[in-house]
């Protein structure tokens, strides 16, 4: 501020005039595709340090964003688009019908505000049409994006929302009048209803209250400005239920506000289309830990004798004849124990060759087993002592320890399950970046570095004959 104070008045006036005239880039799509929010960081790379710090932390929390064209409607459009997109993300077709009914019931406040029905019915109808279309669409939001990039249709929806906002403010003058310097009616006519007027904070508050919160959707507005700090300031609107209690875990959309402009931000969890790469399911390898299930697949190579394989309390394993409590298991075709002719002796030696291959083939045998949770399986220790050398998993255990994956099976988790990850069949999820990739030309991360300057090839230096001779000599040394 001191630096400004020293400047002559006319220069300040000139700066002020420039600032007043400045408008953000009014080109580009009305609502863009989602792009990585690291672009915001790049955009502010040469801005003042507060912006640099705030935008640097932004992409960590908010993976992607959409730009809205800064044509004086961006705030309205950002809310409208996000409202539809969030409804779609909720994935409940009835929600759209519910919203249509609710908005139709707001006709009262429109009429009370003095809007004539024949003047707003076209805009309202466009809004309801879009609700119905979005409910029926199953295209991941492509048609919604297309509609919002149609100037006429998106303006129609925006106009409807402006009228609704204006009516809401006029319906609740006590709530909004304290923030206004003129009567609510005059404010609405000059700051809400005009075809080209950007949404102000009062308008945003009213719009969220009339459109978004009653739909059970929360809004976060992130203010990116020059207030000190390293993170953007967040303001959150939470939907409430009939008792004025906040709804738990409401679906949320996020807007990035830079003075005079709104864009849409996404956390990774908000992105419906991007599913984290599937982690190799350990089911196939898990099977063999409970070897009694694999008997059908490996009838002749079983390393142990099922006849002598004892599980306390389960008579099914005690002999070829299925009887007692084990009868309930009989419908599962996998449990054909009577056909096992193997003798008790060969426990140690043959295992090393026999086991690794068929284990994988045993996968299908696992699938039909869902209902009966088996009791703890006690396994002869000799078995493990022989197989351990095959799979040296212990070293890589800590890598996978923290993932609490729901394995969906009836089996209690066992430390032995982790073995499967280290097997070559389980592809590593691309979690870690290798040094090879980091240094390769496929890695474009350096473009995000504001100081990055590509080395320029200059033919003169390359083909200068005198230069070449010098190089040669230097090589020969």
């Amino acid at each position: 501020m001191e630096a400004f104070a020293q400047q002559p008045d006319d220069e300040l006036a000139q700066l002020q005039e420039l600032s007043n005239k400045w408008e953000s880039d009014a080109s580009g799509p009305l609502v863009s595709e989602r792009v990585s929010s690291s672009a915001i960081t790049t955009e502010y790379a040469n801005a003042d340090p507060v912006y640099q710090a705030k935008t640097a932390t932004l992409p960590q929390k908010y993976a992607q964003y959409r730009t809205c064209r800064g044509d004086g409607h961006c705030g309205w459009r950002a809310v409208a688009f996000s409202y539809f997109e969030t409804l779609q993300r909720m994935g409940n077709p009835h929600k759209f019908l519910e919203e249509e009914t609710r908005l139709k019931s707001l006709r009262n406040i429109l009429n009370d505000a003095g809007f004539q029905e024949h003047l707003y019915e076209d805009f309202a109808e466009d809004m309801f049409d879009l609700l119905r279309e979005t409910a029926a669409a199953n295209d991941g939001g492509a048609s919604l994006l297309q509609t919002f990039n149609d100037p006429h249709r998106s303006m129609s929806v925006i106009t409807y929302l402006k009228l609704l906002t204006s009516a809401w403010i006029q319906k609740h003058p006590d709530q909004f009048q304290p923030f206004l310097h003129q009567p609510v009616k005059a404010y609405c006519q000059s700051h809400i209803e005009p075809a080209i007027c950007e949404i102000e904070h009062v308008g945003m508050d009213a719009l969220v209250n009339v459109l978004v919160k009653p739909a059970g959707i929360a809004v976060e507005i992130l203010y990116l400005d020059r207030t000190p700090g390293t993170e953007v300031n967040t303001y959150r609107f939470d939907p409430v239920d009939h008792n004025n209690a906040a709804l738990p875990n409401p679906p949320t959309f996020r807007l990035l506000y830079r003075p005079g402009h709104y864009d849409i931000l996404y956390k990774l969890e908000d992105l419906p289309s991007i599913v984290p790469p599937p982690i190799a399911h350990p089911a196939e390898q898990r099977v063999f830990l409970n070897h009694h299930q694999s008997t059908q697949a490996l009838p002749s190579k079983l390393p142990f004798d099922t006849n002598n394989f004892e599980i306390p309390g389960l008579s099914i394993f005690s002999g070829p004849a299925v009887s007692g409590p084990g009868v309930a298991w009989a419908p599962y075709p996998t449990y054909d124990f009577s056909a096992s002719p193997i003798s008790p002796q060969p426990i140690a030696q043959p295992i090393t060759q026999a086991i690794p291959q068929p284990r994988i083939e045993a996968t299908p045998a696992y699938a039909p087993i869902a209902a009966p949770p088996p009791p703890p399986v006690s396994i002869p220790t000799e078995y493990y002592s022989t197989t351990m050398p095959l799979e040296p998993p212990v070293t890589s255990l800590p890598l996978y320890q923290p993932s609490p994956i729901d394995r969906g099976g009836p089996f209690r988790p066992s430390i032995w399950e982790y073995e499967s990850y280290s097997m070559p069949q389980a592809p590593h999820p691309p979690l870690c970046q290798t040094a090879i990739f980091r240094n390769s030309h496929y890695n474009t991360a350096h473009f995000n570095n504001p100081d990055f300057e590509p080395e320029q090839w200059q033919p003169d230096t390359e083909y200068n004959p005198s230069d070449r001779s010098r190089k040669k000599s230097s090589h020969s040394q």
Partner: protein
Amino acid sequence: MQSELMDFMMSAPPGISAFPNDGNLMEWTATIEGPTETPYEGLKLKLTFTFPSNYPYAPPTVLFKTPIYHPNIDFSGRICLDILKDKWSAIYNTQSVLLSLQSLLGEPNNASPLNGQAAELWDKDPAEFKRKVLARHRDLDD
């Protein structure tokens, strides 16, 4: 536009009329009758409306064709009225514009005149103002 035309034909208020030119829906000709108890009483004023392609999200261009002497209207017939500029709203239409113009005739906004002399006379010398209005007025017929 068509629904607006229908509206207009169904319920045109007294004293104003409007119709598209030669079947061109984007160009309309309108008339206002001067409101009673104003200097414009008994006068018929012709206007043209030109609608932009993004109407109603942008205002129509409205011009007085009839020569008129008024603080907020210049000698080429251009009008200074906020709702035809930045305060335009998509819920306005030809009818509301004509009604606004009609009231503008009786209640000029002398704070931002296009015709400074007219603004001064309106306050200081209503008789001279009326004389100037009648002197400038000329009926158009076509």
